[in-house]
């Protein structure tokens, strides 16, 4: 055996994992589409619950849409590692020479593309139901675009911690929702601030800062959690 193993570029690995996750997701369309329907249903429940007064709905819109999006994004979190855990491929990933953090990053990115991005695209339709105008819708989409990747990243920690644990679904929400609060505050806050005629630069900067922070720290935490879960 004279031929040395050719080192694989990190970018190549990232793309390969991303491609694999997305093709797996596309084969189980139900699991990708269900959170989207959940988003639509939850958002539609609010007017039924609080009444259809248009001023009230308009004021509630950013918060309601953000909370619904947050819950919908959380629904699919368990998928991130559970199947790979069940068929053993997760162990191979942990053992592979590629840094685990990078694989986690790719998986979180895939989760964003499959659950966060569709939410961003769907939000304006629901926003219209709440009477948001064009500018409000654009800002809502922008904040969701900045915020949902953070949700996928933070969520990966919870998904890794609750791997193979009793009642993982409910536990995951208890662990992760409190950590989602800053994203919710600044995401919904930006839309509200703009509606009140205030600048949204601060909110967007803070959302971006949260994204950068979680891009750096969550792969570390998630890798540690995965290693603990697989011990």
């Amino acid at each position: 055996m004279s031929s040395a193993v050719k080192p694989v570029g990190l970018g190549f690995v990232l793309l390969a994992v991303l491609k694999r996750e997305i093709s797996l997701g596309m084969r189980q369309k139900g699991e990708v589409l269900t959170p989207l329907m959940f988003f639509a249903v939850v958002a539609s429940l609010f007017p039924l619950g609080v009444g259809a007064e248009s001023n009230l709905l308009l004021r509630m819109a950013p918060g309601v849409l953000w909370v619904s999006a947050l819950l919908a994004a959380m629904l699919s979190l368990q998928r991130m590692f559970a199947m790979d855990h069940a068929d053993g491929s997760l162990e191979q990933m942990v053992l592979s020479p590629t840094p685990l953090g990078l694989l986690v990053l790719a998986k979180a990115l895939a989760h964003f593309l499959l659950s966060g991005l569709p939410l961003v695209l769907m939000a304006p339709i629901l926003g219209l139901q709440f009477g948001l105008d064009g500018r409000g819708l654009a800002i809502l989409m922008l904040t969701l675009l900045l915020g949902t990747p953070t949700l996928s990243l933070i969520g990966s920690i919870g998904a890794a911690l609750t791997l193979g644990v009793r009642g993982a679904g409910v536990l995951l929400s208890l662990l992760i929702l409190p950590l989602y609060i800053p994203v919710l505050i600044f995401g919904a806050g930006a839309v509200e601030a703009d509606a009140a005629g205030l600048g949204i630069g601060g909110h967007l900067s803070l959302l971006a800062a949260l994204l950068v922070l979680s891009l750096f720290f969550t792969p570390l935490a998630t890798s540690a959690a995965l290693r603990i879960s697989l011990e």
Partner: protein
Amino acid sequence: MKLRDIHWFKFAAPQNFYYLAGRMWPWFAALAAVLTLIGLWISFFVAPVDAQQGQGYRIIFVHVPASQMSMFIYLVMAGWAGFGLAFKTRLSGMMASALAPTGALFAFLSLVTGAFWGKPMWGAWWVWDARLTSELILLFLYLGFLALQASIDDPRRADKACAVLALVGAVNVPIIYFSVKWWNTLHQGASVSMKGASMATPMLMGMLVMVVAFWMYTITITLLRVRSIILDRERHTEWVKHAVAQH
């Protein structure tokens, strides 16, 4: 004696710590009892009636120490958690899980006493103010920690998983602290600062004594709880059988 001759990790062994904790807790318990009595006496009989808030302000003698302890315990817990992950000491995880229920209790106590104070002062049991909300989030973080601990059967794995969660959650504690500055809110600004307190001296004294009393209580209860955890986790070892047989 050279530095390397000291057994730095002697008390990291649960067995050694069990006996050390057994000798320490009565002292802390006595201090806690005495200080609580002094603190309560000052807060009820010595501290004057507040010019604006009347008698109602006296709840702060419990409220302020409880909120402080709830935040501080989370940091200590995260510290133990990080230490345990770094050095793989079993005791660290036990300390973290011994601290968590007390932290949760203080967070809850802080919210309840805050509500009692808020009703006469603000006219509402609950206000969605930044500090109240962050205290509530802190309570949720504690509950998440306890729930994760309860749902993993293997205690070593539970300790490590909770350690990661505690460290992640610790990021939230500074946000709690700075939230007063971030959001302009209803909650009155901090009355005690490094520059000097905006309170009468007996009031301040009462509060400080109560703070120390809460510290002592926390140490006592944590030591007692960690002793139970040690016995539970090490129940298959010889020394535990020996120690239990002695009682």
